[in-house]
């Protein structure tokens, strides 16, 4: 079941320059697994080696930050849009 995944400018270079791609999965984590199969250069950019969401990105299912849902276990359906944005912070 493909869902739309929107990528921030900084990650597009790892996804053939595309701003929006489609990937399959029933959860955010499964969608990211499929995303990595399609674009192996995204490895380590969104999900860490130990399988958790990278602290340098924010991920949304539609209007919701998935950290306040079930993180990578958050369920998705075909009409959902997953957006990845960089976490913006400094001192």
């Amino acid at each position, binding site marked *: 079941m493909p869902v739309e995944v929107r990528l921030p*400018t*900084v990650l597009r270079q790892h996804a053939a320059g595309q701003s929006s791609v489609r990937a399959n999965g029933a959860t955010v984590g499964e969608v990211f697994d499929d995303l990595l199969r399609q674009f192996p250069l995204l490895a380590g950019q969104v999900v860490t080696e130990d399988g958790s969401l990278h602290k340098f990105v*924010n991920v949304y299912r539609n209007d919701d*930050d998935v950290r306040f849902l079930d993180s990578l276990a958050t369920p998705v359906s075909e009409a959902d849009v997953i957006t990845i944005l*960089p976490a*913006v*912070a*400094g*001192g």
Partner: protein
Amino acid sequence: MLRISRAHWQAIVDHARAEAERPAEACGLLAGEPGDIDVKAVYPCRNAAPEERLDFIYELHPLDHLKADRDAQANGWEIIGVYHSHTHTEALPSPTDIAQAPDPSWHYILVSLRLPTPVVRSFTIVDGKESEEPLVLERPVSR
């Protein structure tokens, strides 16, 4: 080089001054056309850092980022940079700013309120190195 209207420049300075009263660092996003040097929109955002550290660090509120990104996209723009203020230090990227810079294509505007007159400067941050770039103020439209 980054070019900004006086109205947008003033919006950034006003936001920085308002947040300095708390005291807190102000932060927000800049939108423009991809690859262009003109700031087309300024989106003041909430600083989501822990309350006791608001005047030392900023964490741009994730939902404010999403809203800004959507608005920019709806206008044919994209997010091209971020601004934030330093309440008591110079308008230079801190080591934290450089280490956490999210995108090498972005412009990083720093506002310093250390002196009575605000100082606003723009930088790029690529591979852990900051470089100042000219921040050009657009002349007001003559009547």
